[in-house]
């Protein structure tokens, strides 16, 4: 503020001094250039004017030759005095005549200054003859007096200006003094204790008073704001505390639910498993009344399990632990699967289900389990709340904001919802009303979970409904959900997808039957589970499937038995008493002689990611779905001793289709794009069978066969040749000598290829060349 003060004062001072210098310079210039010459000319004029009339008098006197009169005139001139200085105006006067006479008069003036000179000729006015001249010396004291007087005034003016500057400076200082005081106060003020700004003792200018008042108002507002901030801060702290408490409580709740779910599912596992086994046994033993009771136990157990699963899902979502396992799936396959599940329930309520799906709906990359669960929930609700009506499922792609989305719309003609009911529809544990709960059952968790699943996958569920008219639920999901870094999809769980028609056809053979035929009846399965009931159930179930089942009740015992019996498959529970199942899995996968044994993880906790990352072959959740267990174990047993088929074809779709068919049938598949790559694959690992396309770029089928025949160790590999060319008799005979089976490409079906592979596989050591040609296969279009 001192700087501010001195700054303003200095500025004003400099400004005033500048003005003063300018004015002084201007006045000086004016004085020197204008006033001095004017005054000087004025004095000279006075002298000239004085001499002129007297010269006329002198001329007349000279004409009369009256020199006494001339002297009198001169004396008269000498008597003239300046009234201001009281000094004679004329210093001297001299008349010089042409004849040589001179008359001169002078005043005793003691002046240091040179007088003004005024000279004029004396003419005879009648003859114009020059008579002489008059020379007058005019006193310059007056002139100098005037100059001195003017200079004095100038000095006085300068002093006055300087005084004025000093006064102005002082005045400004006084004006700024309150501001200075205000600045000092503001520098040292404690804002936490800010009171009103003290009023200065001096009187202030109106503008300064306004500043003073404005600062006071500012302080008032600051105090007010501080109070508001304090209140806001307290409220925020309180809210934060409440939030933390709520989060902590929520975490505790989630943990509690997770624990309880686990504890509940363990006995439930036994209830469902035993009731299912008992039900099957009772059915065989013809105890229909008991079967009915067991069915009730089984159904109740299943319902309870469903509820526990929902609660667990919700707690995981709320705890932020729900992970996504993204897979690319054919949408129509998923829809078929879901509709197959829902259809029986729909028929029960006399509902008709209509599917409206885009022909080329294609694939979607989602967490298939979560989408399936969400769709099942919507469809189940639609079916449940509609009686004798119609449920329509529409599935189509839509471009929104340059992104591809897939919409699943479930429309029903059921009881519908009021606006109030819609508002709370997606809240957990809420149903339309209590009467709904009583009439239709359910926990009210399904929609809440579905909504959270969809949001987790970047989509949304919306609902439009009218009471009594029906509802429309819409799931919209991105066609390709971006994979978050922390929920990387499991490579082992990737689904091979093909055109639905092809897949349907591929499933035509009774896979289970084939598998049963193909697997070894003496395969050993080791079950490691600390729950003896779980062990017993698995043993009883798998024994029925002709497996030899060995149980281990701890991790340590499990490891010992693995090394003793080298089982074909290991069923491993995660939660063991002495160590975790993950440790056992890690051990198995770290031993070179055990690493090939497939391990199926059985657990109630959902940690698929860990399982696959540690090398598990499959992952099943408890309570066990027995069909799924059988299927998985069968697949693993077959894999342990499976045959390898090398598919050499330049058509990627054809290779994919072959892989799907063959893998579903238990074969391992290796692919190669052309003959050259095919040879490389053979060199790496000799396949059991080669499926060879004859027409390919780089190295065609014939060239491949040439190379194959050159190597002795490769000569015994059975080859199935696929060709789109019409072969003449000679060509066919030539080819028949080189391959096991020839299949005319373009007219063959999946069944024929699979059949050929199976025939070679079953004979294996007796490759008889066959020629398969089907004239017309209407199902070929897939």
């Amino acid at each position, binding site marked *: 503020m001192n700087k501010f003060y001195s700054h303003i004062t200095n500025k004003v001072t400099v400004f005033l001094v500048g003005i003063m210098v300018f004015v002084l310079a201007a006045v000086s210039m004016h004085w020197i250039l204008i006033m001095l010459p004017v005054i000087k000319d004025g004095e000279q*004029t006075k002298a*000239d004017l004085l001499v002129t009339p007297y010269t006329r008098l002198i001329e007349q006197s000279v004409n009369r030759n009256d020199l006494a009169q001339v002297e009198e005139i001169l004396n008269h001139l000498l008597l003239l005095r300046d009234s201001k200085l009281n000094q004679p105006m004329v210093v001297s006067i001299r008349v010089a005549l*042409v004849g040589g006479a001179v008359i001169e008069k002078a005043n005793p003036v003691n002046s240091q200054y040179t007088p003004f000179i005024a000279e004029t*000729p004396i*003419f005879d006015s009648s*003859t*114009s*003859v*020059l008579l002489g*001249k008059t020379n007058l010396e005019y006193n310059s004291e007056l002139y100098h007096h005037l100059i001195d007087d003017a200079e004095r005034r100038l000095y006085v003016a300068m002093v006055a200006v300087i005084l004025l500057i000093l006064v102005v400076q002082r005045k400004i200082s006084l004006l700024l003094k309150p501001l200075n005081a205000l600045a000092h106060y503001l520098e040292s003020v404690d804002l936490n204790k800010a009171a009103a700004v003290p009023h200065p003792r001096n009187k202030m200018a109106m503008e300064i008073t306004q500043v003073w008042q404005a600062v006071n108002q500012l302080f008032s507002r600051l105090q007010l704001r501080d109070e508001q901030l304090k209140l806001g801060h307290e409220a925020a702290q309180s809210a934060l505390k409440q939030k933390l408490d709520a989060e902590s409580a929520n975490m505790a709740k989630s943990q509690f639910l997770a624990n309880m779910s686990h504890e509940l599912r363990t006995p439930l596992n036994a209830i469902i498993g035993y009731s299912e086994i008992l039900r099957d046994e009772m059915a065989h033993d013809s105890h229909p009344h008991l079967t009915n009771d067991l069915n009730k136990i089984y159904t109740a157990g299943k319902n309870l399990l469903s509820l526990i699963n929902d609660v667990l899902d919700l707690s995981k979502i709320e705890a932020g632990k729900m992970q996504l396992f993204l897979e690319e799936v054919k949408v129509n396959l998923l829809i078929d699967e879901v509709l197959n599940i829902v259809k029986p329930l729909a028929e029960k309520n006399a509902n008709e289900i209509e599917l409206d799906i885009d022909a080329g709906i294609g694939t979607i990359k989602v967490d298939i389990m979560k989408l399936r669960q969400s769709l099942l929930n919507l469809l189940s609700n639609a079916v449940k709340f509609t009686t004798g009506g119609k449920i329509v499922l529409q599935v189509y792609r839509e471009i929104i904001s340059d992104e591809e989305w897939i919409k699943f719309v479930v429309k029903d003609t059921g009881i519908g919802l009021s606006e109030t009911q819609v508002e709370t529809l997606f809240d957990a544990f809420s149903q339309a009303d209590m009467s709904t709960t009583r009439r239709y059952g359910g926990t009210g968790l399904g929609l809440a979970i579905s909504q959270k699943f969809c949001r987790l996958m970047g989509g949304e569920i919306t609902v439009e409904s009218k009471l009594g008219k029906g509802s429309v639920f819409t799931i919209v999901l991105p066609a390709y959900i971006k994979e978050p870094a922390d929920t990387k999809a499991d490579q082992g769980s990737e689904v091979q997808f093909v055109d639905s028609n092809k897949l349907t056809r591929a499933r035509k053979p009774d896979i289970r039957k084939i598998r049963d035929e193909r697997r070894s009846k003496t395969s050993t399965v080791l079950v490691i589970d600390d729950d003896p009931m779980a062990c017993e159930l698995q043993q009883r179930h798998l024994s029925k499937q002709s497996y030899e089942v060995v149980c281990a009740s701890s991790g340590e015992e499990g490891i010992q038995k693995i090394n003793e019996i080298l089982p074909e498959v290991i069923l491993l529970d995660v939660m063991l008493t002495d160590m975790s199942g993950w440790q056992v899995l890690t051990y198995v996968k770290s031993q070179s002689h055990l690493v090939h044994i497939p391990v199926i993880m059985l657990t109630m906790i959902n940690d698929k990611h860990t399982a696959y990352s540690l090398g598990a072959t499959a992952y099943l959740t408890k309570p066990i779905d027995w069909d799924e267990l059988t299927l998985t174990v069968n697949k693993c047993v077959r894999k342990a001793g499976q045959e390898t088929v090398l598919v050499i074809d330049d058509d990627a779709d054809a290779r994919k289709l072959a892989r799907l068919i063959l893998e579903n049938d238990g074969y391992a598949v290796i692919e190669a794009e052309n003959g050259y790559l095919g040879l490389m694959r053979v060199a790496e690992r000799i396949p059991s069978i080669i499926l060879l396309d004859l027409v390919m770029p780089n190295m065609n089928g014939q060239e491949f066969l040439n190379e194959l025949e050159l190597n002795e160790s490769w000569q015994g590999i059975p080859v199935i040749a696929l060709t789109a060319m019409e072969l003449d008799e000679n060509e066919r005979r030539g080819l028949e000598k080189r391959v096991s089976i020839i299949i005319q490409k373009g007219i063959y079906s999946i069944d024929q290829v699979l059949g050929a592979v199976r025939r070679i596989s079953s004979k294996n050591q007796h490759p008889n060349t066959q020629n398969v040609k089907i004239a017309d296969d209407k199902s070929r279009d897939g």
Partner: protein
Amino acid sequence: MSHSVQSESLTLSRYPSKALLLFGVAALGCLHLVCGADTIDQRVQIALSLFPRIVAVDKRFQEKLTADNKARLVFVYERDKSKAVDLAKTVGTTNRNIVNVAVDTVPVQLIDQLAENAQAPTAIFITELLGEDDFKQLLLYGINRGIIVFSPYSGDVERGATVGLAITSRVFPYFNSGTLRASGVEINPMLLEMSKRYE
């Protein structure tokens, strides 16, 4: 036509400052002409009383008299004869003789005076502003004949006239020293000392 008048008046009324400026310029022009004319007339009036006195201080005045022993003072003009006549009459009336020599004041057109057979004057008074060529011819005429060429007009002494007026707080005779030397005119030194000179 009325259109244009209206339009003009509208234009002027739209720009009053411009109209005022035009009026001011016109007024100043008129004032300058009037004042200028007044100044010239005053110079001529003052010159009329000085001219015979200058002629009188010419040391060779007696040699320049006419055959009938008169001082012939010629008032030359180019266009305005009446003015020359008036001026000649005025001087003739107030100065019947110079240094006891009878004065003959005559208005003569320049071309006539420059003619070879023109009567030689004692001195010449220029009654109106002459063009450069005419002035030069008259000047040469005066120099060749050793006579005074008096011009009351400002600037003429600087361009060669023998004598004119220098007016400050007082009126002084104003001599061109070069012309004096060239024409051989000798002026009384007492007067020459009191006069102004153009070197």
